[in-house]
């Protein structure tokens, strides 16, 4: 049976005709009702947005970040170049979100973790599955959706054995009539968005050396930016630029090695002294260890059209335990600002020098403009695996604010003058030494699952984890016929009686405004809309909507499997607003739900089984694309 025919519509039109948009909600706040009476809006969906107070935060999304896309489209992984995951649609809002119904549920045909998000371009939705990375085009003009075509890149099965943490894919970018995405076996493909025909396919990385690609490319102008994964296999991380027209690799900017390889030149001006100096990509490692140095680039890429800079951050240093790689290990766990044309670095900030906790900082960098002390500043917000949210001036790399959004004890703070963390030496791991109760665990206070920023509230909505770990030493393991001492990392729920939280964060005050505590760590991304609704999912399959200002729960529904995908909002051919998200448990932590992953041993799956030993009882695998409407 072909994949295409397996891509069946499982539930069609549970709500055949959506109810009238202006349907009265007896529980809506009075002001809303009054406002509706007072206004004679041509389209009822826009009423609530109009009566809501004008954006009080003063925050704006950087000019040009939406590429001029229609508000109802979702053409880039994070919707815009700024990675805000903010939709200006307001048809679904705090008053009416309770009326959401499933209108479509389609199998993605995958039992692996369905990370990432679909794209919507006009009347077509594009879905990329986990390995084998099928691209499906769905005609939204047909009620319930209908498959237009599917494209199968046929990646090498050998990539399965190389990928560290499930065989996920985090989605595509649309540009110039093409859908561009990565396959697990380290190739990038461009597919004609109308016909499904392959325009080009480029082998950018080499699975023979341990590289895999799981991230969503970003397209800026005529260039496609992609990065590699596989730091634990001795891969040397890089960002690559490809020609959108031909797929040719134009340059690679490495995360370790001499300045020439890292594309550091005379126009490189890090804000902090700790990040300045020649060839730090080699001199901050023992010997030639930078050659296996990690610093992979498997997260999200942002772009600021005003400053003309791309931003991304790098993964943990590779393969060695910390004692074997003396030094800062640059440029692992580093935020880079680069010239999109040449790849030359403008500034960099290393979050964690000499990482001892696997705090892979590939998290999204959200670009926003906000008033600081009366003047607009160009900001970059990075919610970190470290447990800190960092707010930078994205032009200079100056750290303006930092604070913890989950229990953290590896460091007590960040010195904004030096950019350095105050690290608790008792929490630094060493060979053969038992280190207990490190918070957060290696999975971080969040992982790759992206947050969302609303310019209306000025808040960042972060899907967080509250998991700590013991580093208990070593146990015998075996790879390539060689016995070695595996990590005995045991994770467990952090303090407070919860394991996940949706945190609404003020990036200037560096403090939590409100939050929703969840039983399980959050592994889904977040969507926020101009209807002031925040959407996210839980690993046991609840898809939830909360109020962006109060964090009060507005609506929820139990889906078929745990949610590790990222919700989107779009406008359908009928002009109405829709919400879409993948269900389908998997990914690093979510793999604990797979039948073949044992939870008898708390060290299983790099220790995450200890964090979510109950996941297998709470959800089962199976990828499904859900679409909701009122």
């Amino acid at each position, binding site marked *: 049976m072909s994949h295409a025919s397996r891509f069946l519509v499982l539930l069609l039109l549970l709500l055949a005709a959506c109810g009238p948009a202006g349907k009265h909600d007896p529980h809506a706040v009075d002001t809303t009702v009054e406002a509706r009476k007072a206004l004679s809006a041509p389209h009822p969906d826009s009423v609530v947005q109009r009566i809501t107070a004008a954006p009080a935060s003063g925050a704006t999304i950087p000019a040009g970040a939406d590429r001029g896309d229609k508000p109802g489209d979702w053409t880039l992984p994070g919707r815009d170049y700024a990675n805000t995951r903010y939709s200006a649609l307001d048809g679904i809002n705090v008053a009416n979100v309770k009326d959401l119904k499933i209108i479509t549920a389609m199998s993605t045909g995958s039992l692996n973790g369905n990370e990432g998000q679909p794209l919507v371009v006009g009347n077509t939705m594009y879905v990329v599955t986990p390995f084998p990375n099928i691209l499906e085009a769905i005609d939204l003009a047909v009620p319930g959706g209908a498959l237009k075509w599917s494209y199968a890149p046929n990646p090498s099965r050998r990539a399965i054995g190389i990928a560290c943490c499930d065989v996920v894919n985090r989605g595509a970018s649309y540009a110039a009539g093409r859908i561009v995405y990565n396959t697990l076996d380290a190739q990038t493909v461009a597919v004609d968005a109308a016909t499904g025909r392959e325009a080009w396919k480029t082998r950018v990385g080499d699975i023979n050396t341990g590289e895999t690609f799981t991230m969503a490319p970003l397209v800026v102008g005529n260039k496609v930016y992609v990065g590699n994964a596989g730091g634990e296999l*001795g891969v040397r991380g890089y960002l690559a630029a490809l020609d959108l027209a031909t797929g040719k690799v134009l340059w690679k900017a490495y995360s370790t090695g001499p300045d020439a390889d890292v594309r550091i030149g005379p126009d490189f001006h890090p804000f902090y002294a700790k990040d300045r100096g020649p060839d730090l990509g080699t001199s901050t490692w023992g*010997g*030639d260890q930078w050659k296996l140095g990690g610093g992979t680039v498997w997260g999200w890429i942002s772009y600021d059209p005003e400053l003309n800079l791309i931003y991304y951050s790098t993964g943990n240093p590779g393969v060695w335990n910390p004692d074997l790689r003396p030094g800062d290990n640059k440029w692992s766990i580093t935020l880079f600002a680069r010239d999109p044309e040449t790849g030359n670095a403008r500034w960099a900030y290393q979050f964690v020098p000499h990482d001892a906790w696997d705090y892979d900082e590939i998290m999204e960098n959200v670009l926003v403009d906000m008033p600081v002390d009366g003047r607009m500043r160009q900001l970059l917000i990075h919610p970190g695996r470290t447990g800190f949210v960092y707010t930078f001036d994205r032009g200079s790399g100056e750290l303006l604010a930092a604070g913890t959004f989950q229990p953290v004890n590896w460091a007590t703070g960040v010195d904004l003058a030096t950019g350095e963390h105050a690290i608790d030496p008792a929490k630094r791991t060493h060979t053969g030494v038992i280190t207990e109760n490190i918070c957060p665990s290696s999975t971080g206070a969040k992982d790759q699952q992206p947050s969302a920023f609303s310019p209306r509230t000025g808040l960042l909505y972060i899907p967080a984890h509250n998991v700590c770990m013991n580093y208990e030493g070593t146990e*015998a393991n075996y*790879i*390539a016929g060689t016995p*070695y001492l*595996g990590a005995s990392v045991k994770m467990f729920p952090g303090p407070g009686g919860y394991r996940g939280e949706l945190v609404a964060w003020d990036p200037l005050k560096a403090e939590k405004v409100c939050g929703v505590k969840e039983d399980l760590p959050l592994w889904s991304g977040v969507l926020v809309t101009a209807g002031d609704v925040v959407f996210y999912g839980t690993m046991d399959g609840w898809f939830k909507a909360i109020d962006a200002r109060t964090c009060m729960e507005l609506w929820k529904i139990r889906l078929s499997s745990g949610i590790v995908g990222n919700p989107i909002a779009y406008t359908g051919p009928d002009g109405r607003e829709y919400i879409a998200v993948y269900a389908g448990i998997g990914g690093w932590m979510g793999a604990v739900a797979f039948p*073949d992953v044992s939870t008898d041993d708390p060290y299983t799956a790099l220790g995450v089984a200890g964090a979510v030993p109950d996941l297998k009882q709470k959800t089962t695998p199976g990828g499904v694309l859900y679409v909701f409407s009122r």
Partner: protein
Amino acid sequence: MSFPADRGSWRPAAVAAALLLWCGAHYSPAQALRVCADPNNLPFSNRAGQGFENHIAELMAHDLGVPLRYTWWPQRRGFVRRTLVDGQCDVVLGLPAGYPGVALTPPYYRSSWVFVTRRDRNLHLHSFDDPRLRHLTIGLHAIGAGYASTPPAVELARRGIVGRIVGYSIYGNYSSPDPPADLLRGVARGEVDVAIAWGPLAGFFASRNAGVPLALDAIAVDSGSDTQALTYDIAAATRAGDTATRAILEGELRRRRPEIRRLLRDYGVPLEGMDVAPGEQP
């Protein structure tokens, strides 16, 4: 249910019983010895059947009168979960004693990490405490993320001998033959003064493929070193709970012990404690 201990010589009845157990296990429809192995990892196994684990599998299949079927999969993280535990095969022929989540036979060989140097260097290293190690370039297999290390890496880190280490990825470039052997090739080519390598790999390449004579030196047990971590017992494995297959494997390893010992020696594997019969503590 377990296969009755057979400390004596091979008896047809024992094999018959083994076959009955074999049939009763779950080898339908086509009965075969289903082995999962790395297709590119000499001296252990390769697709051409040139590794000592290939030969052990052939001996077993011959004795059991069933065809030998391989599932090839690189022996990397997730190997056991994706192959043996997933039901792709019933046997993996090399795992360290104590490996979690599987049923292991008693170990059938024991080996150690060793120093490997060019013979013409006359280095004769025997201890991690040898002061010369602080001035030599040392090649090691770099393994894993975060805290995972090879035992010699741990020993060197404990002593602060970290400045002149050259990491060789244990995975190497999988498109070239036997990628873990790059570490030994590095010694032969003079990229490093000394490699500290797992015995079977070191012994095999020192005896066959090096191009220049290499010396293998045992690592003495020093105060402060964890001898458990340098010496490993290696066993065959089947799925947890599959006592029938485990008994068959155990019986075969015992029955073929002389051939297996000869095979290991032919492959240059530095062995320890091999005067003790498998099934006892070696």
